[in-house]
Structures are given as structure tokens and as C-alpha cells.
């Protein structure tokens, strides 16, 4: 049992998934529905793959993070400055990002494979656990985190308390997409070591799902990501041993996520695990013009 857990916790795919989920939690805690995550992950993977081929592993990591942040900032400008609907912006930018990622990967790659980076399993597990603790600390123990969660709960009230909503959301996206960028890098260089068109597409939505299943709480997100990581990594073993069809295993996270949220909302648990209530609300602050 313990061996199984350790195997999952050190799996690079699971580590990447944990980082994406955490990144999404920070952004959605600030009240932004983060659908652009999927596109930015896809771009991040393509950029990590290409830039590592040109500049080596370390610079590749930096470039991946910077690119992820740049596109996240674009997303945030749309939402916080242009006051567009979160959902529409996310979906529209996703289409653009899928296209860009493929153009980057197809046009700039030197070869379709990349020597995978070997990291010690301990280091990988440590990265994900530290990221969980860091996110939890930021969100629940610092004034920045309180501001972020306030914006997700009621942006208007937080503005009255002297929190600049747009500034807080930009900050949240910076923290969140740094984590997500590291996740994309780990996926591309440690786990995959190769790239085909649209590699990574769909993981963003999975991360959004898992964040919802853990009611946007970083500490809960870790065990939940491990459970689904286990399901994914042992998808064929489950079929052989118990006769469960892989497609059914694939659908479990989505069904479970809806079920968990329904249960939490229907019981007194929702007082303890408050979800960001203003998620997806377009917040416009009336300003006095000159």
C-alpha cells in the first residue's frame, strides 16, 4: 500500500497534475473561471519542449514560466480590464492558444523527441508537496491570500475594504501560472520527452475538474490528485484485474467531481469548505471619470 502511494506521489505525470491543480486553485480562488488554463498548458508544453532543445533544461524552465505568465496576463487583461465574460474569454483564447502551440511546436522544433530529464523521485515528490504547502500558506496564512479569497467570494465588498480587485487578481494569476508553468515544464521534459500536435490538450480541463472536486482547497487537492493519478496510471491494470473498461475509469474524475461538489453543497460541510462564490462574475467598478 505504502509502496503504491509512493509510486504515485513520485510519478512525474501526477506531479505535473498537482501543480496544474494548485495553479488553478489560486486563480479560481480570486473569482476568475480559469478556462484558459487548458490552452496555456498546451502552449507551455510546446514552449518547454522547443526551448529546451535550443537552450538546455534550466533556461527552458525559465522561458516556459515567462511564456505562461505572458499569456495568463493577456487572459487577465481581457477579464479585469475589458470586463469580458470569463467563460467566453477562456474558450476563445483556448482556440487561439491551441493554434499557437501547434505552430510553435511544428515550426521551431529541432527533432520530435527530447532526452528526458532524469530527476530523483524524492525531488519530484518534494516539489509537489512543497507546492501544496506553499499554496496553502499563501492562501490561508498571509494577507495576500485573504485578499485573493475575498475577491473570489465578494469582489464588491472586498473593494470596500480597500482591496484592489484587479491588482489582486493579477497577483493571483502570477502565482497560479508560475505553478502551472512549472507543471507544464515537468510534463514536457520529465514525463513525456516528446511532442506531437496538441500534446497536453485536455489536462487543463482535468485540472479544473480536480480543483472543483477538492472544493478549491490546496490541502485537499493533494490526496484527490493522487487518487485520480492512481486511476490514470493503472487504467489497464484495472481492466485486466477487475474488468473495468478504461473509458469508464476515464469518466470517473468528472462524475466524482460533480458528486463531491453536490454533497458538499448539500451538507453543513459547505460552511467549512466555502467555494469561491463569485466565480465567473464580471466585476465592474464604477469609476469617476475626469
Amino acid at each position, binding site marked *: 500500500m505504502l509502496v503504491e502511494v509512493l509510486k504515485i506521489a513520485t510519478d512525474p505525470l501526477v506531479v505535473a497534475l498537482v501543480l496544474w491543480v494548485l495553479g488553478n486553485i489560486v486563480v479560481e480562488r480570486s473569482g476568475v*473561471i480559469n*478556462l484558459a488554463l487548458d490552452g496555456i498548458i498546451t502552449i507551455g508544453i510546446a514552449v518547454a519542449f522547443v526551448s529546451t532543445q535550443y537552450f538546455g533544461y534550466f533556461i527552458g524552465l525559465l522561458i516556459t514560466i515567462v511564456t505562461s505568465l505572458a499569456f495568463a496576463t493577456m487572459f487577465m487583461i*481581457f477579464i479585469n*480590464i*475589458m*470586463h*469580458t465574460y470569463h*467563460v*467566453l*474569454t477562456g*474558450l*476563445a*483564447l*483556448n*482556440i*487561439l*492558444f*491551441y*493554434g*499557437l*502551440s*501547434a*505552430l510553435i511546436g*511544428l*515550426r521551431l522544433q529541432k527533432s520530435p523527441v527530447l532526452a528526458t530529464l532524469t530527476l530523483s523521485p524524492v525531488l519530484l515528490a518534494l516539489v509537489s508537496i512543497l507546492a501544496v504547502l506553499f499554496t496553502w500558506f499563501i492562501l490561508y496564512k498571509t494577507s495576500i491570500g485573504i485578499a485573493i479569497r475575498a475577491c473570489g467570494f465578494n469582489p464588491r465588498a472586498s473593494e470596500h475594504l480597500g482591496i484592489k480587485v484587479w491588482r489582486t487578481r493579477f497577483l493571483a494569476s502570477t502565482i497560479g501560472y508560475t505553478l502551472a508553468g512549472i507543471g507544464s515544464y515537468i510534463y514536457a521534459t520529465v514525463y513525456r520527452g516528446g511532442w506531437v*500536435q496538441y500534446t497536453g490538450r485536455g489536462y487543463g*480541463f482535468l485540472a*479544473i*475538474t480536480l480543483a*472543483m472536486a477538492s472544493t478549491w482547497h490546496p490541502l485537499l487537492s493533494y490526496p484527490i490528485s493522487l487518487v485520480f493519478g492512481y486511476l490514470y496510471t493503472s487504467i489497464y491494470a484495472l481492466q485486466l484485474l477487475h474488468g473495468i*473498461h478504461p*473509458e*469508464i475509469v*476515464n*469518466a470517473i474524475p*468528472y*462524475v466524482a*467531481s*460533480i458528486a463531491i*461538489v*453536490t454533497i458538499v*453543497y*448539500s451538507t453543513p460541510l459547505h460552511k467549512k469548505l466555502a467555494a469561491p462564490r463569485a*466565480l*465567473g462574475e464580471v466585476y*465592474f467598478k*464604477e*469609476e*469617476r*471619470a*475626469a
Partner: protein
Amino acid sequence: MPKVAIVKRELSKTVATVAKVLVILLGLLIAIALTSIITGASMELAGITLLQGFLNLNVFVYISTLLPIAVGLSIAFSASAWNLGAEGQLVIGAVGATFIALYTPFGRQEVVAPLMALLFASFLGALWALPAALLKMARGINEALTTLLMNFIAYHMTNYLVKGPWRGRAVYGYPTTDMIPVQARIPTVPGYSFSWYVVVICVVIALLMQLFLYRTKVGIALRALGSSPRFVELAGISSKRLFLIAFLLSGALAGFAGGVKVLVYHGKLVEGPIVGSGYGFTAIMLSWLGGLNPLLLIPASYYTAALYILSFGLQIGSAAVGDALANAIVGSLLAFILLADFLTKYRLVIRWS
């Protein structure tokens, strides 16, 4: 330090429309320019390919799927019901149509089969939208997220069906069902994979929904729900019931489109992501392009369809680059539409102090 403020403004409908049309024309220019830069083809060639897209009869293949979904979604979005699950509702509609055609006695009767299949497809589509609507109404759970997740459940369910119990006996192990009986298929135009019957039905649906939204009490209340839910409640109309109507209508129309895809285009059930192929998501943006107005959606869907054809025209050189390019073009066009929305609804005030 200059101070920048963003202030709301009201522009007349005509100015806003002109802005949108300008963006759409700009989109064509972007499409041509990007195409020639990336593929190295001359501007003229790219322009001709695009023009051919508009004149190609295949636009109707896309219109007959995209238009009904977008019409349904514009009803839902007018009522602030964020149904992002059109993709899943479409896929489940396709499952429903296949079920009627392959596994019920109706499947072999002329005329009855396609009608029953389309009805059942719409019913299943609405049913697939129902849980998200109920969860929102009863527990206040964000419907955008639940509908989004329902898409993936639909994908995997369909994949399970075509790889498991429904896999056809004559398909050599491919993950598809057998072909549906000829009687259940809707006759297509020779040489093309669309049917005039369906195109006419789609346009009629758009017209009917236009009347529903703008000429009936329920429709007008639906549109008011988006901007001022309290006002609707004061007028004595249950906002929850309106929300449910909007949601189920959009689900049913997406399911209808799924039925059309099976009966006209595929002729059998294939894997979920192939049935859906992103139409549900494209339709979300399309309904926005048409300003949530069913009548304007007809030209808007024509335009989107032509862009789709352009993307296939581009794939002649290299399929991978063509597809990537099409995504980049459509995505940047949609981003520009959001930008135009911002510029018509708000203005920037810069104050030097």
C-alpha cells in the same frame, strides 16, 4: 502619472453593429495575412481559397450543425444560463439517434425513423442538460463548470459504447457502430454530405426562436432575466422556471444537431470527440458573434462555416499546419470580437494629474 479609468458608455445599436461588421471584415484580412505568412503562399492565393470557402456548397454541412446549437445557446445565454455543455449534449443526441435507428423497430421505417431519431436526440440532449440546471437551481452550483464536466462524461460514455457493447459486427474492429439502416438516413444532396431538408429545418428553427425570443411573453422575460432577474420576479414570473426553459431548449437543440450529424453526416456512431469535434465550443462563440440574435446567427454561421472550409483548403499543403493555422485564425478573430465588445460598451478616460 496619468490616471486611467474605464467608464461605461451606451452606443446606439447601429454603431455597435457597424463595429462588429468591421471586426468581421478585419478577421478576413487577418486570415489572409496569417495564411500567406505561415504557409508562404501568396496573398492572392490565400484570398482565393477564402473566397472559394464562401462559394463552396459544403458550408451547409457546417451550418446544419452549428446553427441549431448556436440558436439554442443564444437563448440560454440571453437568460444568463451559462450552458457550456453543448458539446456533450450534441454527442448524447447522436447516441440517441443511433439508438433509435439501430436498436428499435422504428429504424427500418421510412420517414418515421429519421423523425423519431431526431426527436429522441433532442430529448436526450435536454436530459443531459437537466442535471446541471437542477443543481444550479437547488444548490446554487456554478452551471458553467458542471456543464463543462458533463461534456467529458458524454465523450467517455460514447467511447465506451462504440468500443464495447455497440461496436459493429461489420467494422473490422474499428470503434464505430454498424451503419444505420438506409431508411433512417436523411437523403443528402448528391456528392455532398448535407441535406436540404435539414438546412431548411435549421433556418425555420432560427426564425421560430427569433419570434419566441422577441415576440412572446416568455421570450421577452427570458431576455430580461439576463439583465435584471429581480424585475422578472416582480413581474410575477418564476425566474427559476425561465432558467430551466432556457437550459432545456439549448440542450434539446444541441441534441438535435447531434442527431443530424449521425443521420446525415456520419451514418453511424463514432467516438465521442469525433462526433463532437469541437462544434459545441465553436457554437458558443458563434452565438456571441451573432449577438445572441437567432436571425443574425444565420449569416454568422455562414461566415464561420466558410472559415472552417478555409481551414480545410489550407490543409492541402500540410494537414497539421493547416489545422493549427485555422485554430489561430479563429481564436484571434474571437478575441477581436471580445475586444470590439469592450470598445463599444466602455470607454477609456485618461486624466493627466
